[in-house]
């Protein structure tokens, strides 16, 4: 049995906006085990970042508030702790120490006028009672660990002097500084070129093998999901539409949305001789949390929609082996 690191149950995040309240994340549950990667995949606006920021306790409140559910994290003492309702001070101690996050654009989290070595050192000094020299030695070891060549020299660089791939390595080094059990990676390779993405994914996998951390990997890229994940959560308009083992999701998708999404992808070597084919596009676009349909959020774009789909949001049901789907018709469509 692998140990659970993170357990999110029925999470609902509310934003107060002009004209009322919206719920960009609603009824989301999943867990991440030690040494495993869970991918959350969805189109932009589906609620992926709000989910990760809710876990990290980094949403601005107001306007945001976790209005329902639980987020439990295994801390270094081995205990599961409830994060919902913790004050900022307590959360701050947990961030960095027990969980850390990297983002799509490292530039937004790095200080442009401070050398990267000093920035990584600061993260260490924030959580540990060691001297400056010892901290700098730790920084050198960390940069080395994330395969930054010539770390002594690169520590002196300012962020803009580094490539996007190197900056993401610095962010990973910073996230790992206090050996957190959980790493949340929100679109960590989206801004990178494919060859650099391949380098960074390889690095993340290696570090996971070495350190046994659990990774919550957020992305919109289905190719990346297939490559990194053991388990997958498919989000749409704030809801989980399908959830399960990665092979199940890609080879036996149960929800019409997942099926359509996979079908709409152009694939390498997908083209038969000479002929150009049309892609199976999904008409329309995802609704915003400000005007969600009353029933299944995907119903307006779904080829398999029936009237009952509009009556109420379908329940997320187990279609076998922990493969969950939120579709009224999953059995007849299977």
């Amino acid at each position, binding site marked *: 049995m692998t140990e659970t690191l993170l357990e999110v149950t029925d999470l609902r995040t509310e934003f107060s906006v002009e004209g009322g309240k919206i719920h960009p994340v609603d009824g989301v549950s999943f867990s991440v085990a030690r040494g495993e990667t869970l991918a959350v995949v969805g*189109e*932009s606006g589906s609620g992926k970042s709000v989910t990760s920021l809710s876990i990290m306790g980094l949403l601005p409140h107001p306007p945001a508030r976790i209005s329902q559910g639980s987020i439990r994290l295994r801390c270094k003492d081995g205990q599961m702790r409830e994060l919902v309702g913790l004050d900022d001070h307590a959360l701050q101690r947990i961030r960095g120490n027990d969980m850390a996050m990297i983002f799509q654009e490292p530039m937004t989290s790095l200080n442009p006028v401070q050398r990267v070595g000093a920035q990584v050192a600061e993260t260490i000094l924030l959580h540990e009672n060691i001297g400056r020299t010892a901290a700098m030695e730790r920084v050198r070891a960390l940069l080395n660990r994330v395969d930054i*060549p010539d770390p002594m020299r690169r520590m002196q660089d300012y962020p803009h002097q580094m*490539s996007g*791939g*190197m900056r993401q390595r610095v962010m990973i080094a910073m996230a790992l500084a206090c050996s957190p059990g959980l790493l949340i990676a929100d679109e960590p390779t989206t801004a990178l*070129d*494919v*060859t*650099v*993405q*391949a*380098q960074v*994914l*390889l690095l993340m996998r290696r570090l996971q093998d070495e350190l046994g951390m659990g990774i919550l990997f957020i992305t*919109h*890229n*289905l*190719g*990346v*999901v*297939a*490559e990194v*994940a053991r388990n997958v959560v498919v989000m749409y308009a704030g809801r989980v539409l399908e959830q399960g083992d*990665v*092979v199940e999701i*890609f*080879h036996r998708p149960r929800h019409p949305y997942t099926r*359509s*999404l*996979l079908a*709409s*992808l*152009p*694939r*390498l*070597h*997908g*083209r038969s*001789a*000479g002929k*150009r*084919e*049309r*892609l*199976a*596009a*999904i*008409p329309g*676009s*995802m609704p915003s949390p400000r005007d969600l349909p009353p029933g299944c959020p995907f119903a307006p*774009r779904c080829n398999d929609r029936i009237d009952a789909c509009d009556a109420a949001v379908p329940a997320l049901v187990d279609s076998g082996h922990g493969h969950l789907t939120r579709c009224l018709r999953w059995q007849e469509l299977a």
Partner: protein
Amino acid sequence: MTDLLEIRALKKNFPVARRGVVQAVQDVSFAVAAGEVVGLVGESGSGKTTVGRMILRLIEPTSGEIRFDGIDLLAASAPEMRKLRRRMQIIFQDPFASLNPTMSVGAIVGEALDIHGLAKGSARTDRIVDLLQRVGLPAEAMERYPHEFSGGQRQRVGIARALAVEPAFIVADEPVSALDVSVQAQVINLLQDLQEQLGLALMFIAHDLAVVEHIADRVIVMYLGRIMEVAPSRDLYRNPRHPYTVALLSAAPTPDPLVRPQRIILSGELPSSLNPPSGCVFRTRCPHAVAACAEVVPPLEEVAPGHFKACIRDVV
């Protein structure tokens, strides 16, 4: 097929203050036939946008030759150029930045008609409605403003604007890179339908290799300002001959968890285009490089019918 566009030894240097010269595009030559879709791929900074913009003379080349319909673009007189402008259009990646937020969609599409004096009065309105319908937007969209539309719809507006002048050639610079997959497929289908119906020649710039394979007849692979390989789409993807193309294709993740890619991880970083390597620009990261690769810039040589590579080694 006859060549609509012919580019020879195109070069662009950008001088940058105190740091030297960015060698953005070096010695790029290729042709595009009427009605052909050519894909231009390569990682960011490889010079794709600069090539696309030079063709439309939105960027002045440092040297080289661009012929469109046999006319030398760089020597064309102002009236000649104005006529040619109508025949070439560009679609940008960012449908947010490329549409004027203070203009209605009708005005945006209409402006293209006005510049070239193509339609007036009620004929103008009819034409705008017709163009919007062509790209899958309702006539009512005319009265609305860019911010009222989703990313995919804005890209449709950009396409309608490009089509307004009935061009023969369109440069589409990462037209679907900012869109979600489900919407990306809609826009790719639209571009493909329009290309076929109107017999357009299209230069499709993208970094997503699967998207390019899907849409292009022929593909050009660039790295650090230079062409590495050119081939018919199917040949390039099935039988890449340049080590860079091989590495690039191997790096693309496959949306199938049961497929474990045989990946070639490139070592090191992209060199600076302020100071590109001598000889083959890819040699510093190439798993097959030998001493001779530093000596001369490898010429593009035909290795199979229509399949060219710039590599002196014969390893892939």
